[in-house]
């Protein structure tokens, strides 16, 4: 019987290790998030002092998110992840409802010409951050219920529909970059849930075609594309953001200017504490600092892949893969944007950029990942199942 074989495997492994799972994962996540709090302060204290009269304005908010994030990480880390499977539909419906709520007048908060937040009193949350993980739970649960249906084109359509629906609502905000993240996440999850390559290509093609259409649809995206191709042609216009990011990185050189010594934070670099915080890190710690930071990011991703690879059930495998993928996708896109390798889009660097919804949710997701590495044990469960 298969149950007995699971027990046999468990027994064969050192009990201690199974109990604790990959401890490096939560440790690295907390360290990176703590570094994020420090960098948010370094990147924002000057602007915060000038704008709000409080140098710690952004740092305090980030600190709150950091503490709540640790709580969420621990809670998720000791919450048996398999229970999440039951949340398949709630996760999807909550995600969609929250995304739709953005468009409800009075609830939606507009900023920089886009409605991406829900305002509940003093708290603003970003539904798209939640939706990413809602989608992972739904897709993992759906695919693992009956893996064979993923081999059929019609069988994988619900995953496609869920992902497409979420993408649609996000693109309406509009938020091109998160749409891209969810789209890539969907592609990765379909790929990892074992769809046939033929089917995979059939869905990949329209997505690839959708990107240029979406770009041409909004004139500002086209302008950003031009600005990306030659930022120096409009140094005070569309090219400004990218140029300032490159200035920061260039100023960093090998070893950087040192902590708190960024020149670009003096209001030259917009969104220095959020989407472009990597530029400030590159300026203050140089190329060496960037390499070390990305080795840490790589270690987190490696832990995630290892967790997925070691997982014995498909739901855990797909959830771990999805969480790792969404993290990796955001890290990669953010780095490519900051270094001017792809057209600028507003995407935070997960765990580091200021923004509490993203921070808390990402840390919670990392908690889930950690739980999967622990074999899905809850807090009081003993090593014998």
């Amino acid at each position, binding site marked *: 019987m298969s149950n007995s074989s699971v027990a046999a495997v468990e027994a064969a492994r050192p009990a201690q290790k199974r109990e604790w799972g990959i401890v490096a994962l939560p440790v690295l996540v907390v360290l990176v998030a703590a570094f994020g709090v420090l960098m948010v302060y370094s990147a924002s204290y000057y602007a915060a002092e000038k704008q709000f009269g409080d140098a710690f304005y952004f740092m305090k908010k980030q600190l709150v998110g950091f503490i709540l994030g640790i709580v969420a990480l621990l809670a998720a880390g000791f919450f048996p992840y398999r229970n999440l499977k039951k949340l398949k539909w709630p996760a999807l419906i909550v995600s969609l409802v929250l995304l739709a709520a953005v468009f409800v007048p009075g609830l939606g908060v507009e900023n920089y010409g886009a409605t991406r937040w829900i305002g509940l009193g003093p708290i603003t949350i970003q539904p798209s951050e939640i939706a990413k993980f809602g989608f992972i739970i739904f897709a993992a649960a759906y695919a693992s219920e009956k893996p*064979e249906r993923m081999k059929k084109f019609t069988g994988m359509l619900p995953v496609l529909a869920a992902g497409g629906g979420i993408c649609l609502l996000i693109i309406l905000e509009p938020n091109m970059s998160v749409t891209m993240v969810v789209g890539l996440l969907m592609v990765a999850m379909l790929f990892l849930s*074992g769809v046939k390559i033929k089917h995979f290509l059939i869905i990949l093609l329209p997505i690839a075609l959708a990107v240029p259409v979406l770009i041409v649809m909004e004139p500002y995206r086209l302008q950003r594309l031009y600005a990306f191709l030659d930022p120096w042609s409009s140094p005070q216009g569309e090219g400004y953001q990218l140029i300032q990011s490159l200035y920061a*990185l260039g100023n*960093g050189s090998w070893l950087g200017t040192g902590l708190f010594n960024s020149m670009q934070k003096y209001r030259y670099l917009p969104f220095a504490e959020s989407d472009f915080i990597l530029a400030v890190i590159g300026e203050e710690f140089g*190329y060496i600092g960037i390499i070390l930071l990305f080795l840490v990011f790589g270690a987190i991703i490696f832990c995630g892949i290892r967790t*997925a690879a070691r997982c014995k059930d498909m739901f855990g495998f797909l959830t771990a893969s999805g969480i790792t993928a969404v993290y990796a996708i955001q890290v990669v896109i953010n*780095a490519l944007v900051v270094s001017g*390798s792809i057209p600028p889009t507003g995407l935070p660097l997960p765990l580091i950029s200021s923004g509490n919804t993203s921070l808390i949710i990402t840390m919670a997701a990392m908690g889930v990942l950690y739980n999967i590495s622990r074999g899905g044990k809850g807090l009081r469960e003993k090593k014998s199942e």
Partner: protein
Amino acid sequence: MRPLDRVAGGADFFMQKTSAFFEVNRIRKKSHTPAAGASATLLRKRLFAVSMAVVFLFLLIFGRFFVVQIVQGEKLRCRAIGQWTREIPVVAARGKIEDRNGTVLADNSASYSVFVRPNAVKDSNATASALASLFGLDGAALAEKLESTRVSELTIARHVDKSLTEELEKYDLPGVYYARDNTRVYPYGQALSRVLGFTSTDNTGLTGIEKYYDKYLAGMDGEIAYPADLVGVEVEGEAVYLPATDGLTVRTTVDYGIQAVAEAALERVYEQYSPVSAQCVVLDPNNFDVLAMAEYPGYDLNDIPRDDPELLNDLSRNDIVSDIYEPGSTFKIVTAAANIEEHLRGNPSAFSLQYVFNSSRTRTVDGTTIKCWSNHANGKHCSQTLAEALNNSCNPCFTDIALALGTETFYDYLEAFNFGKVTGIDFSGEAQGMLVPESSVRACDLARIGFGQTVAVTALQLACAAAAAVNGGYYYQPRLVSGIYAEDGSIAEEIPTVLKNRTVSEEASRILASLLEGVVESGSGNKAYIEGYKIGGKTGTAQKFENGAIAQGKYVSSFLGFFPSDAPQYLALVIVDEPQGAYYGSVVAAPAAKEIFQGIIDLKGIAPYENK
């Protein structure tokens, strides 16, 4: 039973490893049951593929950051530095202008400009009221401006005294700065005004030496660069001080003592004869250094009529270099020099010093009649030699010389004396005069050129030609500046004396000088005679042309003199434009030249000539 087990056939679902990259779990190797779902092997392969994609993207990122931070880093940083700082100018002190003995003719008084950075101001009202009281501004308007302006820097006051900046220091106002800006000061006001020229309010030379030597005088402005944020608010960090390079000192050839003497003489003439202007140039005939270049009326360089551009243009024009006039009899020096030289060379057409010219008052050339200015009645201008012709300034004799030498020979001398072309003096706007081209000159033109008509010259051209006739026959390029000096007195650049060409031989020159000495001793130039000194000279009185016709009653009276005549050290040309009351050069100009020579004798303590 769990769905997974049902599908993938048990716990071995994920046991097989595609790569050592993943943890190896070598419990058992069970043949997987290929059910409807994807095999574990396939999914692991796919996970491995995704991992490789991540690795690839990370390497791409490393490469990309290397390019931006290391390869392009320096270039980006250089571009960025410009935006990180706000600069306060440090104005270079403009170089001085000195006379040949080091007397300062143009200097600077230290003054300051006061600026405000509205962004850096803490309290607009207090700042505005303090600035308003110090610099006499409207406080309310300034406060309003500080609040509303989008300019990053406002200039509050320029050319402010040091004492005011000291007052300003006491207020210790954030956002308020001052920097040195220099006010040009001319210690002698009106002296040499048309030569020195003046500067714009931002210390750029606009006319005269100030303009011509601006590149040496200007220096290089420096700056203080403060690190600042996007909107110009000063931030932490060190200010970079880039010192200004002060301008260099321009040493002129002018002798201020002689200049002052000349200006006094011209002022006296101006008072007496109310001419349009009175001009004088004093040259050192041995190298054509300009020792004095004066024109009356001038203007006070410390109080320039900037709001009357027409007047300013008129007053700042250096007529000695830029204006041309018909010289009249002073030109006979050149004709005489040509004749003497040609005679010495054995040209049979030239007249010897003993030759007696025809006493007739008139000459008829090409059917036109040329008359002497004198009526030749009662034995005047009778049976003259060249010496006497010069003494009397008899026109027909010089007509005879010009015609006798012929166009080709005579034009060779006009060429050697550099008529019809610029002298090359270091001054902007030099006129080249007017000379009928050799190819189209008629005999009647040639006849008139002989005594200084049908030819137009600048005063400087004539003075140089005369100097080149009496100094042994050397034509130099005249100069106003002898060198450029650094602050420590070391020479930065020398303006050399340039010998352009020879004119006549030493012997011819000596003969001419002695003849001209006779003109002052016993001829028309006797009002320039100073007892005990060998002074040579020639008077000139020319009628003015206006619109192509002789302007009745308008004359240019002039006198060209030099001394000592056997070894000339000083040569002066005095020109009085449209004198009232009297008009003969001998009456109007010669006494002024005498005053100048007397002044030089007194100034230099030149002892009288002693007969051996």
